[in-house]
């Protein structure tokens, strides 16, 4: 199962930092995501497009996880050599495509 099957997300930026938000559809989904999307796992997934350290902020009260990668966008979004401007808005798909444990269907329905 992929993250996007049980969560929504959005990518943003501030200066050199990439800022990623994942919101689970319910508590069961949050538990799975909280277990699976560790800072290390997210760092490894981002490594091929935006390498560098990742800090994770769990927000259980909002069923959300935040990830901040402070060195992912060197020089800010306008210094990027990706095609066009603001590639980082699509960066949330790196997380949404990650695999998580399956078998949630019966729990969440």
């Amino acid at each position, binding site marked *: 199962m992929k993250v996007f099957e049980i969560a929504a997300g959005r990518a943003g930026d*501030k200066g050199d930092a990439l800022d990623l938000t994942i919101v689970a*559809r319910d508590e069961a989904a949050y538990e799975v995501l909280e277990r699976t999307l560790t800072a290390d796992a997210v760092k490894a*997934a981002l490594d091929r497009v*935006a390498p560098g350290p990742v800090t994770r*902020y769990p927000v259980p009260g*909002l069923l*959300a996880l935040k990830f*901040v990668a402070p060195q992912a966008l060197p020089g800010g979004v*306008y210094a990027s050599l990706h095609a*066009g401007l603001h590639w980082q808005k699509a960066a949330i798909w790196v997380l949404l495509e990650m695999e998580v444990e399956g078998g949630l269907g019966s729990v969440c329905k």
Partner: protein
Amino acid sequence: MVAPFAFSVGCGAGFAGDRIDPAVALARSGQVDAIGLECLAERTIVPAIRARAANPEAGADPRLRRRLTPLLPPARQNGCKIISNLGAANPPAAGRAIAALARELDCQGMRIAAVEGDDVTGLLNHIAWTEKLDGQLIGAHAYIGADALVGPLAEGADVVVCGRAADSALFAAPLLPHLDGSPDSLAAALTIGHLLECSGQLTGGNFEGPGEPPLTAEELANLGYPLAHVMADGSAELTILDGAPGRVDRMTCTVQLLYEVHDPAAYITPDAIVDFTTVRFQQIGRNRVRMTGPTHRGVPPTLKVSGFVARRGIIADIEIGFAGTGAYERTRRAADTLRLRLSDWPETNIRIDIVGVNSILGGASVPTNALPAEARLHVSAICTDEAHALIVEDEVYALTLSGPAAGAGVRSERRARIDTLTGFIPRELVKPTVHWSVA
């Protein structure tokens, strides 16, 4: 029970180029007491600074007339205040232009307050930058808070126009006089501002929920922009106008609440540090969500400053496309050809990839088995000057004669290299002033 709302505020724009009609719909509805227009992204101010340097009456948002012409009459008719940062690098000129526009629109007597003082380029010695200044500084602007916008509203301004201000402050300022004055009500006003400041991002734009049908093209084309009905304690109901398409629920609200805030326990604004981890959303109706609980965690001793540095050189961004059977293979061969032609460029200064395959997420793109019917080779390169950019542009164009068959659809653009710097300045050094214009 009819909820005793203290005040209602809507968002009419979330960036300089945002749609015009949603703000007009909000003003006509009579359901909001104020509309915030967020029109100044971090770097939007750079062309404005340059325009003002060339002409002392220039430097405001060039879309001022287009945005405000349909908006001022219904706003005046319904007593709806307008608060915007579209003053950009020249709020006093924006104030004069708005007053002149109001006269043209038969809105005589409208009072426009222009708030100036965010420009701290003259206080460079007092700014602590988080990194070294490398290049020519174009300008430095501090983020002013809602506290600088509340005064003119209290003195009867119909429109408040400023330059750099915290986005959330544009929406919090008209609320504050109607709240109970507690620290947490200030935190709530700033939270509401943050939720509203990106317009359609709160109401289903830039959003896809798990396992649910996304908004249709027709819904997205007519997306309602958000409004908040606010109680005296700062709790609020977030919604869209009746009949407007969109989606306001726990998920759209949570995704926007946490958007670009980094540490959710410390959303730092000029007026207060706000803890979002205590916020709760409750669905109380279709497209209607109740927000409670943000916590005030103190006042930051400094204001954030954005500085802009022009760096030597430009980025050239060029594409050439291929179509027909074998399009992807020819695009890859074109990319390999170009790598050989440009092999003396330092790797860190050039990027070659394929649009439709890996030009956005690079190595993190998920491979597909289906070959694209068309593909485009993309190259971006950091060039020392225009002549240097022409070399890489010419190399791509030369592929039409000496590359794989039928290279087509060539396009190119050049972008200035401007770095954004973050700094901090003691708040007492930033002293906003107000310039009044009357239509």
